Every structure is written in structure tokens, then in C-alpha cells.
């Protein structure tokens, strides 16, 4: 079992013919993800990587029954694609990414994964408002590595060779830090049910809370690792949820303990404003909720056992 993504997910890739889209679609297919098609405006009717290419997400959904999408498009185009798909992996460059998100949602896609980094905040605020009209559509990202259910399927760019199937749910704002932890878990025999990278932007689709609620309902998930970072208060909200009672054995880790105030640490969302969004406040929130806090990533596996 898993959350969000399983063997029955029918995935399309928005931006499938681009360089990134092509490379990662091949990786997704190589691990058995059911990629049923892709979109690339103007290339409808052609075939790419052995699957049909459509001009629009609506066409792709009608022809293939897709319910998930990955967006690999450039930023100013990506917000719109999320609104058109339902389970769509979006690999579109940023100028088009916001549009790609909306296209996905409006076309009935249920799971929309947007990898694109650099979508303007105001475009994402528009997207979030648009998505209220499509309550069945769940957005992951943007600016995220996507998600993977080890051994079954993935949408995005998480390398499958560092993952293994098992019972640990992993949710994170970071990319490589997620890989690092997944790799350590796999090396010590603790497989993962699903790994979800929610992204490093200030305005995101699914939050820690949303993903943790899904893990709570997944009988195959018994343990949970939450990898947060400075900025915002999503970690605090997740801690509050876990503090109300959870069946999952959980370890949290926060990066950015030594980050200075007011400096953006790589991710657009990783910034301490005044005294808000500090690692200390997040760690305290988790401790207060009875969740073990790892001081380094090396401690995570030990604390989780």
C-alpha cells in the first residue's frame, strides 16, 4: 500500500517532449510507472517514448483515462498546466508552469505534480485559488522532486535506486536531503511506503499536514519521517496535528538551524522573517507534540527504530 500513487495510477507528462520531460519520463517508465501519454502543444498525434502525445490535457484525459500528471514546463507556463490535468506529472519550464497546473485541474486530473522551480508567488496564489474550484485535484509542488512509491511508480525526479519498498512514510520540503534520508533508510533495511517531496516554495500545493493525514490513513505506513526547513509555519501545523494523537512512530528533522535572519537559503520559501520561521520554533513544536527530533540526518534511522 501507499498514498497518492500506486500501480493503478494512469500518468501523463505535461512537457513530455522537452529534454527534462523526456529524460525523467524514461526513468518513470523504467520502474514500471504506467505512463499513458503526454502533452506538448502542436505535437498532438505524434508518439514519443512509445506513448501518444496530445495537444491538450483534456485530449489526453479523454483518450487515455489519465488521472495523474507530472508537469515539466518552464515557470510562467506551469501554473496553468496544473489547472488542466488530474493525475499529471508536470515537467514544464516556469513561464508556462502555473498555466500547466490549472490546465491539469480543469481537465479532471486528480494528482498533479509540478517539478518546475521559479514560479512567481503571485501566480501560485492564483493557482491555489483556482484549485478551490476543483476539490478533487491534489497538487504536489511546485519546486519539488515529486513522489515515489518504491518498486511501483513515481512522478518526478526522485532516483528509484536509493529507495526500497516498506513501511516508512517520508515527507519533505527538500530534494537532495530527501534522497539522503531515503538512502540511509534503505541501507538500514527500513523501506518506504511513499516518499513525497512537497517543495521549497512559500506557496505550495499539499502541505505537511495534508500528506501526514494521508499517511495516517494508510495501513501500510507505520513510521513517519518529516524533513522540514526554516521559513513559514507548516512544520508547526504538522506538529500540532501529530500532537493530537498519531499511530505513526515519527521522527522530525529541520534544516537551517544556523541560517541568518532575512536571507533566502536557496529555496524561495526558506527564509526567516523577524523571529518567525526559525528552526528552533519548529523543533520545539515537534518536541511538544511528543515527536522525536533528530539533530543530524545521521540520527534519523536510529531514532526511528
Amino acid at each position, binding site marked *: 500500500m501507499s498514498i497518492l500513487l500506486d500501480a493503478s495510477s494512469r500518468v501523463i507528462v505535461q512537457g513530455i517532449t522537452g529534454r527534462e520531460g523526456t529524460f525523467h519520463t524514461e526513468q518513470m517508465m523504467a520502474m514500471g510507472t504506467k505512463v499513458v501519454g503526454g502533452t506538448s502543444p502542436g505535437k498532438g498525434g505524434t508518439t514519443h517514448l512509445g506513448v501518444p502525445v496530445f495537444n491538450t490535457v483534456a485530449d489526453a484525459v479523454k483518450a487515455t483515462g489519465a488521472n495523474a500528471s507530472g508537469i515539466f514546463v518552464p515557470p510562467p507556463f506551469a501554473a496553468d498546466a496544473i489547472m488542466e490535468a488530474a493525475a499529471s506529472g508536470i515537467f514544464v519550464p516556469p513561464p508556462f508552469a502555473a498555466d500547466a497546473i490549472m490546465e491539469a485541474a480543469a481537465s479532471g486530473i486528480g494528482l498533479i505534480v509540478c517539478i518546475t522551480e521559479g514560479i512567481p*508567488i*503571485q501566480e501560485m496564489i492564483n493557482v491555489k485559488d483556482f484549485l478551490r474550484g476543483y476539490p478533487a485535484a491534489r497538487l504536489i509542488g511546485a519546486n519539488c522532486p515529486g513522489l515515489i512509491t518504491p518498486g511501483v511508480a513515481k512522478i518526478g525526479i526522485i*532516483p528509484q535506486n536509493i529507495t526500497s519498498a516498506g513501511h516508512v512514510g517520508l515527507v519533505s520540503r527538500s530534494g537532495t536531503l530527501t534522497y539522503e534520508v531515503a538512502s540511509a533508510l534503505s541501507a538500514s533495511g527500513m523501506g518506504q511506503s511513499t516518499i513525497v517531496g512537497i517543495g521549497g516554495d512559500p506557496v505550495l500545493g499539499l502541505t505537511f499536514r495534508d500528506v501526514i493525514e494521508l499517511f495516517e490513513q494508510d495501513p501500510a505506513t507505520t513510521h513517519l519521517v518529516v524533513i522540514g526547513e526554516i521559513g513559514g509555519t507548516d512544520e508547526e501545523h504538522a506538529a500540532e496535528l501529530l500532537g493530537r494523537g498519531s499511530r505513526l512512530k515519527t521522527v522530525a528533522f529541520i534544516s*537551517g538551524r544556523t541560517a*541568518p535572519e532575512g536571507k533566502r537559503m536557496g529555496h524561495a520559501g526558506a527564509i526567516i522573517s523577524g523571529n518567525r520561521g526559525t528552526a528552533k520554533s519548529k523543533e520545539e513544536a515537534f518536541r511538544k507534540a511528543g515527536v522525536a527530533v533528530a539533530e543530524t540526518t545521521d540520527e534519523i534511522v536510529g531514532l526511528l527504530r
Partner: protein
Amino acid sequence: MKLLEYQAKEVLASLGIAIPPGKVARTPDDAAAACAELGPVAVKAQVPVGGRGKAGGIKLARTPDEARAAAAQIIGMDIKGFKVPLVYCESALEIEREIYLGFTVDRDARANILMLSAKGGMEIEQVAEESPESIARLYPNPWRGPLDFELNQLVFEAGLGEFSRPLTSLIKKLYRAIPELDAVTAEINPLVVTKSGEVIAGDAKLEVDENSAWRHKDLEQRYGGVLEGDPYEVEAKKRGLTYVALDGEIGIIGNGAGLCMSTLDLVQRAGGKAANFCDIGGGAKAEVVQSALAVILMNPRVRGVLMNVFGGITRGDEVAKGLVAARDNLKMQLPLVVRLSGTREAEGRKILKENGIEPGANAWEAAQKIVELTRVRA
């Protein structure tokens, strides 16, 4: 991009918001001339941080000589790490009352929040803590912006009904900064109602989203070079690197923002201090590694470099070869510790070792090693 006060006011003026008469002065003589033209002025340091008044960055001048003396003191001053590049000389207002008006991104709500309060002139964070009920709030629909009746409600809720007309019109103008400029924060505090009943922006803060910089190249051109940035940050930006200057002595390179941040944390835990944050992204391509290393080595405070690369699909032996070449090309003499993982990581470590670069078995060990090596040399 955070604009300076005079820049933010120029932008507000372009949106149709009234600002006091003022002039930018780059030299004491400019300030004297501004005062001769405008009469008594406040000579204000232009830095992108609050608290400049307390730091001695705002002085009143009644005569050109006073303005000259004030500017001579303020220009070049250091305020919270920023060297004051110029002053803004502005006419004083006849204040009847002070209001707070601003918007920002409410990350929890994933929306813009407009805030209006009759308690102007104080830090809004302080007002929010002491009397949250005195701040009226509105979350406008992002597609259509605030409607007239919503703004009217906001104004009355803030207890400012007597200024309903001018305020409603002014808030609409300020809100245009969102769709037109991709602003993520704008604040007019205080918004001054003068004795003659005009509503004027007493101060202004404006921050524009860096993700939208490509849409607003004019802003960057007009205002980008005014502040003297950290020289290494400037150089890194030219090279397309994600780099943040810090005040320690150990240079850091990591791939991925989260990994890089956690590397800084490990260095501090091991007793050292990072000189920078530098995220080279996935893949760790040889030319990017060399470019990052070159910028880090320009900083004379750097006594050693720690590189933390998690490979995943990336091949460890290729990263190692690229790194050795980069070190040799740059003739780097300082200690270099590398934590490398990924496919073929054992081969990668062997290459590093053969070439005199310390491989760390894991990130924590690598952090301890670089701290130890830089301490010995100190």
C-alpha cells in the same frame, strides 16, 4: 528584491499615490542643494532594513548647511551591515494622524492579505501582538482584486470610516503593485493624513518577487546597482550560482538547498562557522563545481572548503574527477574535504584520496574533519 525607501516611493508615485516632495542626494552638496530647494527636510539613510532612525540614520535639517553636515555623517555609515549609498532629503509633513496600510503574502493562507490599522507609525508586528483587534484584514480574490464594498468594509472595520473615500481609492492604487509589479510585500507606514486633509505616504516598503524578475527588468536596471552588495554574492550571481554570504571561515558547496543548509548546521555543530551557502543544484557538473569553488576562494577569510554532494543517479567517480581538475585549475592550496555519495562512490573516494583530497565517510564526519583542518592552520 527589496527596494529602498526612495525607490519604493517613486514606484508608489507611478501608481498614483501622493508622496512628500523629496530629492535623492549622493553627496553632502546634493543634500544642501535639496534643502535650499525644498526648505526644512529630513535627511534619511537609504538602507533596506528597519531601525535606521535608532542607528542615527535620520536627521532633521533646517538649513542647507545642516543638510550638508547631516548627509556627510550619514552617507557611508554602516547600518546593520549595509553601507549607506545615498540619502533621501524629504520635506516634513504637517501630520494630523498616522495610519498603517500594507499587504503581504500570508503563507499559511496561501493568499495575499491586506491590512489596515488606525495605529500607524508603529511596527505592525508590535500592533499585531498588543492589539490584534485594531488591524482590519482582507484576503482579496487574487483574480479580480479587492472590490469596492470589501474595501469600504475594511476601512470602517479599522475605524477609519471618515476617510473612506480617499482610503478606498488609495488602497486600490497600492494593490496594483501585485498584478503590475509582482510585489510580495508593500507597506505604507505611516500613511499620513495631513492637517489640510491630504493622504500621503510617509514611508514606503516594497519587495518584488525574485521569481518574476524577468518580467521587470526595468526595476533591476533602475535600482539594482544602488546598494553595494557583498562582492562574492555579486560575482556568484553573474555566474548563475545560488550563493549567500555568511560570516565564517569555512567555504561550503552542496547540491540542493536543504542539503546545503544542513551542511552549514553540521559545520557549526562541529565547532566551525560557514563562510557561505552555495547550492550547485543536481548533477554536480564539473564546470559548475569549478565556478563555485572559484568564487568561494576569492574570499580571503576562507580557510578551507567542505563540499557535500549527494549523487543519487550522479556518478561519484565523475564528480571526483571534475573536482580534482577544478582544484588543480584553480591551484587551490587550502584544505578541501569532500563528502560524496551516489553510484560508484567508492571509486570516487579512491580518486579523491589519490589526489590528496580528504573524503568524509558521511556528512558529519566530513564536517568535523574540515573544522579540525582549518583549526590547525589558524
